C-alpha cells in the first residue's frame, strides 16, 4: 500500500521509509507542511504518517486542512516525548492514531496496518469469526468450535481487539490503549497476565494455541 510519510527529520524519515519499503509498502515523502498537504490531496495514500512539528505548516494545521477538504485518509500523528496535552489536541484535530517519539518501528508498522484496514464505523460487524473462534458482540458470547467459553469483560475486550486485527500484529501498547485506556507504560505487564489467562481459557482441553506471541512486539491472532 501507499504510505505518505511527512517528517522533517531526515534520519527519522529515512528510517521509517526504509522499514516500510522492506514490508512492501510504497512510500512518498514530504519534509514540510505545504508539501505534505499537497501530496495528501493530490496523491492517494492509504495512510498518512504526519509529524506534529513540520516547517512551513505544522502537522495539526495540515491535518485540519485535510479534514476540511473532506480527505478522510487515516492519519497517524507523530509527536515528541511527554506531550500529554498534544494527544488530546491531535485527536480533536482529526487524527486516527497517535504515536510518541521515539517509537519502535514494529509499533509504527503495526499501527499503520491497523489504520489501513480499518473499516468505517457504519460497517462495524456485530459478529467476528477468526479460525475456530466465533464472537457475538451483541450477546457478548465467545465460542470455539461451537463450545462456549466464559470470559471476564476485560478478557472479552482483549479477544475482540485481537480478532478485529486478525492476521496482523497487535502490539502491547495498542492493547493497553484500547482495552485499558492507558497511554503510559506500566512496569507490570498486565497485558501479558491477561493474555495468558485468556489463552488458557481458549485452549482448554489441549486445543491449538490461536494467539501467537511476537516477543518484544505484541500478539497476532491466526485466522
Amino acid at each position, binding site marked *: 500500500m501507499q504510505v505518505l510519510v511527512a517528517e522533517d527529520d531526515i534520519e527519522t524519515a529515512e528510517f521509517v521509509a526504509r522499514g516500510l519499503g522492506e514490508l512492501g509498502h510504497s512510500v512518498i515523502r514530504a519534509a514540510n507542511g505545504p508539501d505534505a498537504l499537497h501530496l495528501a490531496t493530490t496523491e492517494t495514500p492509504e495512510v498518512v504518517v504526519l509529524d506534529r512539528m513540520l516547517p512551513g505548516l505544522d502537522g495539526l494545521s495540515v491535518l485540519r486542512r485535510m479534514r476540511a477538504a473532506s480527505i478522510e485518509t487515516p492519519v497517524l500523528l507523530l509527536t515528541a*516525548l*511527554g*506531550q*500529554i*496535552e498534544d494527544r*488530546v489536541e491531535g485527536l480533536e484535530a482529526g487524527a486516527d492514531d497517535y504515536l*510518541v517519539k*521515539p517509537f*519502535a518501528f514494529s509499533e509504527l508498522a503495526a499501527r499503520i496496518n491497523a489504520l489501513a484496514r480499518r473499516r468505517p464505523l457504519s460497517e462495524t460487524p456485530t459478529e467476528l469469526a477468526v479460525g475456530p473462534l466465533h464472537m457475538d458482540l451483541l450477546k457478548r458470547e465467545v465460542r470455539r468450535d461451537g463450545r462456549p467459553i466464559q470470559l471476564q469483560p*476485560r478478557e472479552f475486550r482483549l479477544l475482540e481487539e485481537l480478532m478485529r486485527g486478525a492476521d496482523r500484529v497487535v502490539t502491547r501498547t495498542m492493547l493497553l490503549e484500547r482495552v*485499558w*485506556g*492507558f*497511554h*503510559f*507504560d*506500566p*512496569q*507490570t*505487564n*498486565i497485558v501479558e*497476565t*491477561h493474555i495468558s*489467562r485468556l489463552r488458557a481459557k481458549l485452549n482448554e482441553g489441549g486445543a491449538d494455541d490461536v494467539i501467537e506471541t511476537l516477543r*518484544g512486539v505484541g500478539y497476532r491472532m491466526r485466522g
Partner: protein
Amino acid sequence: MRSAAYRIAFVYSAAFALAIAILGAIIFWAMHVAFTRQLDTMIRDEAAALVSEYRADGASELAEAIGKREAIPSHDRLFYALFDAQGRRISGRLVTQRPALGLHDIVFIDPREGPDAGRGFAVDLGDGERLLVAADRERVEQIDRTVISVFLAGFALVVLLGIAGALLLGGYLRDRLGAISGAAEGVVAGHLGARMPVSERGDEFDRLASSLNAMLERIEGLLENVRQVSSDIAHDLRTPLARLRNQLERGLGGDPAAQHAVIEEGIHRVDDVLALFAAILRIAEIESGKIRRNFAAVDLSALVAELAESYAPAVADGGRTLGWDVEPGIAITGDRELLAQALVNLIENAQRHTPAGTAVRVELAARGDARRLSVSDNGPGVPVQDRERIVQRFIRLEGSRSTPGHGLGLNLVAAVARLHQARLSFGDNRPGLIVTIEFPEDRV
C-alpha cells in the same frame, strides 16, 4: 536626580513649601485689604465729623477745627486740606492737588519725607469748596512689611526643615532599599545563599525583604533540585550506556546469531533509558500544571475498581494478593489517565517492595468532604523516621534510581496528587505501609 528616594522627599518638601507660600500670600492679602479698609473708614468718619462741624458753625470754625487737629502731635495723625472752587488751598497743611470727589489714592508732599503716598477722602462743602481728609499709607505699609518679614522668616525655616527632612528621609529610604538591592546584586553575582536583611520592625521594607527571601529560598530549592536531577540523570545514564557500550563491543566479535542477541539486548537497554526520559518529561509536564486544562469529571470509583480488577491477576502471578474495597459513586474533577497511572504506580510499589505472600489492599471511601484513596500492604512497612526520607528521597530524586520505575514512581504520584490539590501521606498500616491520597472537596 537619580535617587527616587531623594526625589520623592524633595518633591514632597517643595510641595509643602509651595503650600505654605500660597497660604502666606492669602493671609498677607487679606490683612492688607482689612487694614486699608480700616484706614478708609477712619478718614471717612473724620471727613463726616468736619462736615457736620462746618454745617453747624460755618467755614471759619471749620478752619479752626482743622488747625486744632493739626496741632495735636500724633504718629497716626491725619492730614487736611480745604480747597476753594478755583483749586487753591485755603486751609489745612496737606500739600496736594485739588482732588476728585470720593475715596482714592493720593500723592502729597510730606514736609519731612517729600512726596508720599496716601489715602484721601474728598467731600464738597458748598460754594465749590472741597474738603480733603487724608492718611499716610505708611501705617498699612508698616504692617505689610512686618507681616512679610515674619512670614519670610517662617518660610525660610520651613524650607530649611523641608530640606533637612528630605535629606534624612531620602537617605533612610536609600539605605533600606540599598540593603535590599545589595543583597540582590550578591545573588546576581552567584551567591545564591545571600538574603535580604530583615529588621525587627516588621515594616513594609521588612515584608518586602521577607517575601524576596522566601522567593530566593524557593528558587534556591528548585535550582538545587535541578542540579540534583541533572546529576542523577547523568549518573543513571552512565551505567546503562556503559553496559550497552561493553555489550556492543563484545558483539563485534561474535557470530551472526550472537550478534542478533546482542542487538536485541542493546535495544532493550536503550528502551530503559528512553523510559527514564519519558518518565522525567511526563513528571515535568504534570508539574507545569498545563494538564489542568484537560480536567474533566472522572468516575473515580469505576476507575479504581477497574484497575484493581486488572491488576489482581498480575499481582497474584507475582505471589501476592490484591484485594479492594471501593465505595461506589465517588467522582472527582481531574485527569483520568494520570489518576490511573498514580494508582498503578502505588500498586506496583506495594508489590515490588514486599515479600511474597503479602496482601495488598486498595480502598476508596468518602469521609465527610474528603475522598480517600489508599493502597496498603501488610509487608515490613517503612519505619517512621524513614517515611519522611522516602518521600524526600523520591520527590527530590536523591539516591537510588537505578531503574526508571524506581524512585520516579512515587515522584509521579506526588506530582499527580499536587496537580489535583490532593494530599499524599504515608502511614503505618500495623503492620505494613499505607499510602493515602486525600482529594479535597470537589469545587465544580
